[in-house]
């Protein structure tokens, strides 16, 4: 069972996080535009978006924590622990470390850019009419940036595992 539990929990939470990220980008944002046109948008912004954002941001945190546990147990050496090796891009942990850096940037975007600005857009915290469009734009671009970063992040998470990296990186 060596580091399988950490990996399993990391993948479970990661699917929840990235699945909701793709839901926001590929379904909700385009759908909200159409819903605004026929007056049905309040149902989405009141009942769907806050629930989706709750699962989204906590799944992001769980993904990072379980990923750190996985690195700690599975990618270290006798001299250096796996988290340090990965984030310092050392040796065989360098490839998954690149994925870990991308995932960390994405976690920052979720908690520092997307969630605080979405709270203003959804009316969960007070915001002026001037602030709301700016908050919406920041949250939108941070979300799209995360979608873009998810492509290489997922590649390095898969390709960086010890079982695959020799065949992929030579």
């Amino acid at each position, binding site marked *: 069972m060596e580091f399988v539990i950490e990996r399993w929990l990391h993948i479970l939470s990661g699917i929840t996080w990235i699945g909701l990220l793709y839901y926001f*980008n*590929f379904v909700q944002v*385009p759908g909200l535009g159409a819903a605004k046109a026929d007056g049905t948008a309040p149902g989405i912004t009141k009942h769907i978006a806050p629930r989706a954002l709750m699962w989204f941001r906590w799944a992001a945190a769980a993904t990072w924590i379980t990923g750190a546990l996985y690195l700690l147990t599975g990618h270290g050496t006798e001299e250096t622990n796996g988290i340090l090796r990965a984030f310092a*891009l050392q*040796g*065989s942990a*360098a*490839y998954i470390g*690149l994925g870990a850096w991308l995932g960390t940037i994405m976690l920052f975007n979720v908690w520092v850019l997307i969630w605080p600005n979405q709270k203003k857009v959804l009316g969960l915290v007070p915001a002026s009419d001037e602030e709301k469009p700016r908050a919406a734009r920041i949250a939108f*671009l941070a979300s*799209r*940036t995360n*979608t*873009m*970063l*998810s*492509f*290489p992040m997922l*590649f*390095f998470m898969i*390709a960086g595992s010890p079982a695959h*990296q020799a065949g992929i*990186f*030579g």
Partner: protein
Amino acid sequence: MKNPLDTITGTIIAGVVLTLILYLFARGFLG
């Protein structure tokens, strides 16, 4: 120039291109 992240297609293309660039970087300089 329009921001590629404003469209879904642009975002996907940017993600694939970034994956390729980082792969070549990793293959050439890491490990």
